[in-house]
């Protein structure tokens, strides 16, 4: 028992010193299990590839330039859709959060369209935009915008009225109330909306690429299915997971640490 505690203690020290390795360490047993099952030959190799097969496929596709090109396409589409979603969603969320009239008018509409779901739009979008960037962007914007609008509105409504009053009494004009009170006050919720929106948007993108795509990670996986290549499908899954981890650990989490957590508005995870 003591030995286990000691080992855990040593692991904690080591993890604090090497955060990147600490993030990878939990995957060691997962990969080991995967490798073990594959090596035991329970399933045919073509259906259940082992880690070296996937690594081999990664190297080949990277060398041929397919993987980098597809990755670039997927990330580019996501970035375009998410940017439009944020640029539309944050102002709309602030409007809904600040104005009771706007809230009463827009809330039912928001809930209605949110319920339809992105993929349900695809048949119609294909008629309108065809198999192209228009369709993909629409789907991503559609998925991103609802969590951003709803969380931004919640964030605005959560700001204590006294903060607005304090700023007014110090001589702040309306636009300053917006930039110095409303926006920072709603930021933790906006980040939550963004986090959800990115997650949904990413999934919507893969689905859209599978259905309408001619490139991208989703297309890679679906194309591999046609060719019966399980190894490329597994590679695609791993790439998706890694990308999400990178977005979260390198972009979202640092922003949250520097803002809401620093200001004492949200507790540390």
């Amino acid at each position: 028992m003591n030995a286990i505690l000691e080992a855990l203690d040593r692991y904690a020290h080591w993890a604090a010193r090497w955060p990147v390795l600490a993030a990878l360490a939990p995957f060691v047993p997962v990969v080991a299990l995967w490798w073990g099952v594959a090596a035991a030959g329970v399933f045919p190799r073509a259906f259940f590839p082992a880690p070296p097969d996937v690594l081999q496929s990664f190297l080949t596709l990277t060398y041929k330039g397919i993987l980098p090109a597809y990755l670039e396409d997927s990330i580019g589409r996501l970035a375009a859709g998410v940017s439009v979603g944020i640029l539309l969603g944050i102002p709309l969320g602030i409007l809904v959060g600040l104005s009771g009239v706007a809230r009463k008018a827009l809330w039912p509409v928001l809930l209605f369209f949110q319920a339809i779901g992105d993929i349900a739009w695809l048949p119609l979008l294909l008629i309108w935009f065809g198999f192209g960037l228009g369709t993909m962007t629409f789907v991503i914007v559609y998925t991103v915008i609802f969590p951003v609008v709803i969380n931004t509105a919640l964030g605005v409504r959560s700001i204590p009225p006294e903060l607005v009053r304090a700023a007014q009494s110090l001589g702040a004009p309306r636009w300053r109330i917006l930039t110095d009170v409303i926006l920072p006050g709603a930021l933790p919720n906006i980040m939550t909306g963004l986090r959800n929106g990115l997650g949904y948007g990413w999934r919507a993108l893969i689905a859209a690429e599978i259905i309408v795509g001619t490139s991208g990670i989703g297309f890679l996986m679906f194309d591999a299915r046609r060719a019966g290549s399980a190894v490329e499908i597994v590679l695609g899954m791993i790439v998706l997971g890694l990308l999400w981890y990178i977005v979260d650990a390198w972009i979202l989490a640092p922003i949250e640490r520097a803002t809401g957590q620093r200001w004492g508005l949200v507790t540390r995870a």
Partner: protein
Amino acid sequence: MKSLTLRNLHKTYFDPAVGTRVTAIQDVSLEIGPGEFVAVVGPAGCGKSTILNMVAGFLPATRGDIIVGDRPVKGPGRDRGVVFQNFALLPWKTVIDNVGFGLKMRGIAKPERDRIAMEFLELAGLSHAAERYPNELSGGMQQRAGVVRALANEPDVLLMDEPFASVDAQTRMTLQEELMRIWGERRHTVLFITHDVGEAVFLADRVVVLSKGHVLREIPITIPRPRG
């Protein structure tokens, strides 16, 4: 410093959910001279905050006039500095940026407003905490920052709504003494709200007793300062 005049002030709240009217303030008149410190005291729910919020311009009066110097009040403005019970510091700004916020709104450049804000932080014994965020400060320190934030903006009138009600008794006494020291140097016109009669008598030139929305009586406090 300017005078603050309330003339035949009325306030009726209308609650659309219940459909009833509540008369919170009934014919309140009050004259606070330039540099005078007036405390309004009364039990919870007697209408103290309603008066202060109307003077601050946060709430419209149902009837009556509020005049600062010779200008009628229309909405919030920097001529009336407000100190809130729960401090109302902006959590995303450091202490020095909170204190310099009013100066920033007046278009004063960063180095100059930092210099002025630092002077006021020194006045409150807070210069060591200038770069901290409000959530890293104790309640007493936050309210010191809240007071000098209002002062740094050079208001004509200082409005304080139970400013020391949410700190512990020990800190409250220190804050009261510090407020007296600062007021003694600068002589602001002050409207101070409290439910604590002892606090009112310790601080004010005149105590106004409020009951159920109207003035019960006004008592001049002639005890020489400093009071103990």
